[in-house]
């Protein structure tokens, strides 16, 4: 456990010294979301209809932004090898690392989402559901992204591969996340999609660290 908390603190410390790393996704998110009103007419009522998708897809893209770097630096300076050699179970350390990464790059997105939702004309209830759905959904995005990053970190010609791997695996989160906000915006019950998001969260946070650790082992061999 102390090894996991050491990994967690190390990530936070590193990020504190490079604020650009966690600030960039946030700025990216705001710009993507605010480009849509510029793309269609500013007072178009359709904006409100598309707002759930815009806010969710924007968050997904912003979360993807830093994913490629999660393990890259650690592989290059040998930290990754030490993590996998350590006495503590590798999946736990991976989970701690991804958890720290979530705290740094995804939680700010969750905090920013209500402002973007209001700016895009969502009702207060829908904004609340939006924030909740992102709170449940972003760890799923982060852990899936971490898994894909682990798959590609050892590849010599990874290129644009990462988004191709991640996006199909992320579709359920977008379907249920956007679905919850859409249901809330049209006055329907939004419990079911939120429960699905919760189920996805439980599934990915518990199982994917094992696959991620396995893929990382494969990468350093």
């Amino acid at each position: 456990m102390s090894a996991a908390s050491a990994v967690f603190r190390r990530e936070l410390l590193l990020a504190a010294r490079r604020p650009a790393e966690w600030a960039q996704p946030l700025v990216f998110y705001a710009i993507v979301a605010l480009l849509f009103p510029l793309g269609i007419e500013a007072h178009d009522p359709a904006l409100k209809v598309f707002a759930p998708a815009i806010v969710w897809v924007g968050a997904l893209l912003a979360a993807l932004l830093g994913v490629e770097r999660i393990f890259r630096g650690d592989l290059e300076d040998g930290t990754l090898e030490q993590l996998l050699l350590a006495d503590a179970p590798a999946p736990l350390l991976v989970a701690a690392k991804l958890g720290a990464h979530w705290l740094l790059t995804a939680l700010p997105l969750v905090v920013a989402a209500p402002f973007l939702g209001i700016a895009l004309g969502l009702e207060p209830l829908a904004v609340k559901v939006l924030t909740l759905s992102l709170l449940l959904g972003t760890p799923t995005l982060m852990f899936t992204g971490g898994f894909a990053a682990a798959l590609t970190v050892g590849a010599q010609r990874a290129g644009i591969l990462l988004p191709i791997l991640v996006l199909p695996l992320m579709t359920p989160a977008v379907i249920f996340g956007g679905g919850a906000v859409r249901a809330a915006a049209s006055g329907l019950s939004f419990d079911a999609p939120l429960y699905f998001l919760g189920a996805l969260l439980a599934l990915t946070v518990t199982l994917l660290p094992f696959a991620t650790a396995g893929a990382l082992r494969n990468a350093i061999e």
Partner: protein
Amino acid sequence: MWTWFHQLASPPTFYRFADVLAPWLLGLAALLIGVGVYGGLFLAPPDYQQGDAFRIIYVHVPAAALSLSIYTLMAVAGGIALIWRMKLAEVAVVAAAPVGASFTALALLTGMLWGKPTWGAYWVWDARLTSELVLLFLYAGVIGLNQAYADPRAGARACAWLALVGVINVPIVHFSVTWWNSLHQGASILSVDGIRNPKISGDMLWPLLVSLGGFYLFFGAVWLRRMQNEVLWRERNARWAQQTVAA
């Protein structure tokens, strides 16, 4: 039995075994697909609602069934490759992916051709169609991942991990017609109820089953051939491989 199985895992033995088996599979597949397609196109009566348009099922259903089976197979082979570090299982994963992607694309394409006259649209964002499209992207991911690695063994094992995680999509595709209100019709054959009292008339069903068998055999033949190629390439520095190529 087990010794034979273990011997089969060695690349030269597998290569010779596949060399014998593949032509038989291919011949039988050609026969079954021929009979199935002839039966489906000429002998089966037209559907009372869809007319002749329904006949695309003799290609669409086998392709769609294979798209799911092949991914499941890749996950199983991937599990074997990761747990027992079996070289041949790695080859099996990598060799199956492009074939699976082709069948997925074929299923989507034939479905679109059928959807236009029957539903009035080539594409709808329906649960079955969307999850099948996601399956195509998963295949694309496996193919891309394999090509991104310089070391074929590390690449194959990364593909195995992806196949294992992505297999979650297979039951979603299969049950999507039941779980969501789907425009796509439900399962006519592959369901508990469907086997006891088929929802499809006998003179339409038999060509479909024959064609289904033919497609599976065809996949088997293509898969073995692709595995042979992959094995030969990976073992290109071994003496048996050089002798095989020279012979």
